[in-house]
């Protein structure tokens, strides 16, 4: 085909639009200079199109390419890796647009565009982005159609409509493929996108960190229970334990990474639930008490936390079974207990003295813990997110001077005192509670639900959880952070527009919960539809399945969908209708030769009746044809055109032969 070299106007326009739409989702993680490059190049390209500028010459192209590569290296520190790769891809997309000359260039650009859309998914996989990305895909397809040499491709809107139509028609087949196409594990490992600025728990904790977290409304995870949701005061979501104390911060012991499975005993009724975790950039997973998960590459570590080999960089779905009444390490290990007794060599002398005194009064660990909890309960301790400043001896200052703080202060102080009294203890970091979403029957746990509590060890009973915060502010545990801070008005004070602050507004709250429920469904059923989840879902729907079954249903379902689409596209019944109309035209011509012409707008029946009066001898044949035509045309009769044709032939035979055609004037 002698294709003209240049790119049609419509295609170019759609490509320019597509470029905007492709780049928008990437804006969040692109360096600023690439936006300047983009605007410059797009402006230049438009000027070329308006014949006001020339294409860049070889030097300019080489300079731009080199400049972009250097820019990527400077801003990303490397030319490989996903972050740098995506910036390079976008830069290529921008520069190719500038030098695009031929249809071939346009095709390369369109395919690059599809790729750029896919890379956007690696950074963000929300519903909004998924829906939004239909726009660049439609415009890229419109640009592809615009490359055709057809009158239709000269007009922008029909091109876009056709592209959208193609996408809509492709949807059923796409859903079939999505459900049945077997998901493979990764073929090789690829650099993962860095989730920047993820708020969440970290492996060391100073009280200020938890205060920081409590200002964030970001979602940590969602959980669906198979049975009823347990009461709120039992929802202690463990993440990790903090065993090292340096006088200021609590942090994870290095030994916690040792792959030693702890000894424990399942007791009581298990709780079954599934969790969809938001990206945390950390390796630990969340679970209630002692938990087991079916997730590959995840295991129970020696402090009973669940940990994965890779950090969670994308939302992650896993099934969990928890035993809240399990007996944890009733015997204990020497090294483990020694870790749980570690204290800094010096500091906080008053606390140590007080601990020794408690130890004297309550020789039994259990009594001592009760006494400590009673102390927090009785004495004027307060729960606040704005704690007063403490000095070098932070535990002393908190316990005896300021007496105001939040969970991290209480957990840290209690662990310190227990250890000083010779009872192995550790701080547990995690989340407490969560908001129940009735429209989706699940719990949503946010960063401000972050919590710290205490576990102490007792021979024979193993590790036991206690929460000193409960003694001070039971409403924090039973109702949540907002109620605990009701007097202080400090709940989410730095984010005045968060919908979470307006939970008392019924419709707004309903809207928020529904939206969250939709997102949760999206995460569970779309994003989490991988490997095991796919197999499980298919088995639940269809019973036992194997590879042959999947292949058959793909082929069979695809064939069925395509036939339906073909029926809809080709409308074979319309062809039948066409034939009927043509036969009626012949009928008209035949009668017109005998001077019975159909008046404009005259119905088939009226016309036939008039003809019957004019040609009484052939009335029967005319009636037969008209009746058959009417039956097929209007009553949806399924008779074929064959008998219509037969009636027409009978009529022709009945009529005297006449040559002059009565053309309509």
């Amino acid at each position, binding site marked *: 085909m002698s294709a003209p070299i240049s790119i049609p106007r419509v295609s170019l326009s759609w490509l320019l639009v597509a470029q905007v739409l492709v780049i928008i989702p990437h804006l969040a993680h692109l360096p600023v200079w690439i936006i300047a490059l983009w605007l410059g190049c797009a402006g230049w390209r438009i000027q070329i199109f308006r014949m006001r500028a020339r294409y860049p010459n070889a030097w300019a192209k080489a300079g731009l390419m080199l400049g972009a590569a250097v820019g990527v290296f400077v801003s990303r520190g490397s030319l490989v890796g996903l972050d740098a790769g995506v910036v390079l891809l976008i830069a290529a997309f921008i520069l190719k647009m500038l030098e695009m000359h031929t249809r071939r260039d346009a095709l390369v650009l369109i395919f690059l565009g599809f790729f750029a859309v896919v890379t956007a998914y690696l950074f963000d996989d929300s519903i909004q982005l998924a829906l939004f990305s239909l726009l660049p895909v439609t415009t890229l397809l419109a640009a592809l159609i615009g490359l055709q040499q057809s009158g239709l491709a000269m007009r922008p809107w029909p091109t876009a409509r056709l592209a959208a139509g*193609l996408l809509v028609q*492709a949807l059923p087949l796409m859903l079939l493929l999505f459900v049945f196409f077997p998901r493979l594990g*990764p073929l090789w*490992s690829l650099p993962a996108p860095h989730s920047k600025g993820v708020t969440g728990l970290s492996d060391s904790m100073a009280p200020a960190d938890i205060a920081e977290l409590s200002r964030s409304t970001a979602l940590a995870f969602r959980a669906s229970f198979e049975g009823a949701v347990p009461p709120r005061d039992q929802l202690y979501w463990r993440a990790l334990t903090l065993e090292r104390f340096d006088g200021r911060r609590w942090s994870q012991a290095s030994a916690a990474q040792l792959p030693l499975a702890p000894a424990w005993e399942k007791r009581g009724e298990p709780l079954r639930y599934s969790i969809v975790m938001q990206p945390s950039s950390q390796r630990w997973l969340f679970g209630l008490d002692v938990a087991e998960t079916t997730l590959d590459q995840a295991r129970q570590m020696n402090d009973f936390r669940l940990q994965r080999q890779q950090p969670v960089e*994308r939302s992650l779905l896993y099934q969990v079974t928890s035993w809240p009444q399990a007996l944890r390490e009733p015997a204990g290990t020497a090294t483990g207990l020694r870790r749980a007794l570690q204290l800094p060599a010096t500091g906080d002398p008053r606390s140590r003295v007080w601990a020794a005194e408690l130890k004297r009064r309550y020789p039994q660990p259990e009594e001592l813990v009760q006494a400590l909890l009673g102390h927090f309960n009785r004495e004027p301790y307060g729960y606040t997110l704005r704690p007063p400043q403490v000095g070098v001896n932070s535990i002393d200052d908190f316990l005896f001077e300021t007496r105001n703080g939040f969970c991290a202060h209480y957990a840290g102080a209690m662990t310190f005192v227990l250890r000083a009294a010779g009872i192995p203890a550790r701080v547990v970091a995690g989340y407490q509670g969560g908001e129940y979403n009735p429209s989706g029957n699940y719990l949503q746990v946010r960063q401000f639900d972050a919590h710290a509590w205490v576990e102490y060890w007792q021979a024979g009973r193993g590790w036991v959880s206690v929460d000193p915060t409960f003694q001070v502010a039971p409403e924090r545990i039973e109702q949540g952070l907002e109620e605990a801070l009701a007097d202080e008005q400090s709940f989410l004070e730095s984010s005045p527009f968060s919908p979470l602050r307006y939970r008392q507004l019924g419709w707004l709250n309903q809207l928020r919960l529904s939206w969250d429920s939709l997102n949760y469904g999206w995460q569970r059923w779309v*994003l989490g539809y991988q490997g095991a989840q796919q197999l499980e879902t298919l088995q639940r729907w269809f019973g036992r399945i194997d590879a042959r079954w999947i292949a058959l249903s793909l082929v069979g379902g695809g064939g069925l969908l*395509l036939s339906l689409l073909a029926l809809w596209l080709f409308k074979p019944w319309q062809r039948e209708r066409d034939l009927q109309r043509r036969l009626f035209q012949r009928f008209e011509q035949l009668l017109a030769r005998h001077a019975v012409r159909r008046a404009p707008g005259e119905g088939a029946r009226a016309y036939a009746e008039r003809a019957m009066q004019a040609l009484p001898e052939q009335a029967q044949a005319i009636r037969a044809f008209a009746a058959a035509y009417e039956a097929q045309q209007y009553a949806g009769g399924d008779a074929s055109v064959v008998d219509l044709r037969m009636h027409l032939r009978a009529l022709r035979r009945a009529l005297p032969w006449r040559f002059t055609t009565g053309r309509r004037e």
Partner: protein
Amino acid sequence: MTRLFRSRWNRWLARRIPAAASVRLTQRQIFIIPSQVGAAFALALALMLLAAINYQNSLAYGLTFLLGSVFIVAILHTYRNLAGLELKAGGASAVFVGEQGRFRLRLESTQRAHQAIALGWPPGALQVHDVPAEGVSECELSIATQRRGWLRPGRLRVESRFPLGILLAWSWIDLDQALLVYPRPLAGELPLTAGSDDDQQEQGAHAQGQGTDDFQGLRSYQPGDSKRRMHWKAYSRGQGLLVKDFAALSGRDLCLDFDSLSGDVERRLSLLCHWVLHLSERQQPFALRLPGCQLAQDSGEQHREACLRALALFGSPP
């Protein structure tokens, strides 16, 4: 091997799509295959699928499947764009060797519009036409002529890549069209035999005379006129190109004789062709004699056509 394959293919094609003056494209006539662009598209999809697998990204899977489904749905659309199109042979007028032969064609749509239908005879370029819904598009296809005689252009290629260009639907149809190609006119000596009788002596005399006697006057030069009759003196005086006109050509019975010329057959036919045109233009009656074929003295459009036809078909099996 390829020849064997080709002949088999042609025979199969002739059975499947027999020659007819009007062809309606249906699934019997239409073939469909991914184009080069389609192959590139499939490659891009494969890369996207790899990204989806390696990043375990459901949305990437989704987009890959969506575009893959578009690919499959486009098969129906590309096929539909060609299906139902009716091609009807129009006429074709005769041309001289070296001119472009032009075949007229009517593209009719009974239902849908058909976009970007490309027609032609490869390796020549294809022409692209749109056919409106329930409408007609007339087109004229040209083809280079190299030999005199009947020109049968062979099977016409009809193809369409609409809407996405990733698939190619095509057909080879035979509209049973042919056009007559006359020899290329070549100015030169007048192959004259006066009278239609076979008088050898007289023929020789006139052949020598070449009709250059009886100078009649001057007329302006026309392409095809012999250079020998150019009036160079007038040209040097700046009166333009003039040709000496000879009365010898008029008033006497003229017979253009193949045998009075020398040289190879094609050259002789070209010379005869020139004179047929020349004499017809001057409305001078003449006869034409070819080995095995004789046309009596006459003039007029019909005579001209008959002579040219005889020249074009000279030597070809009847």
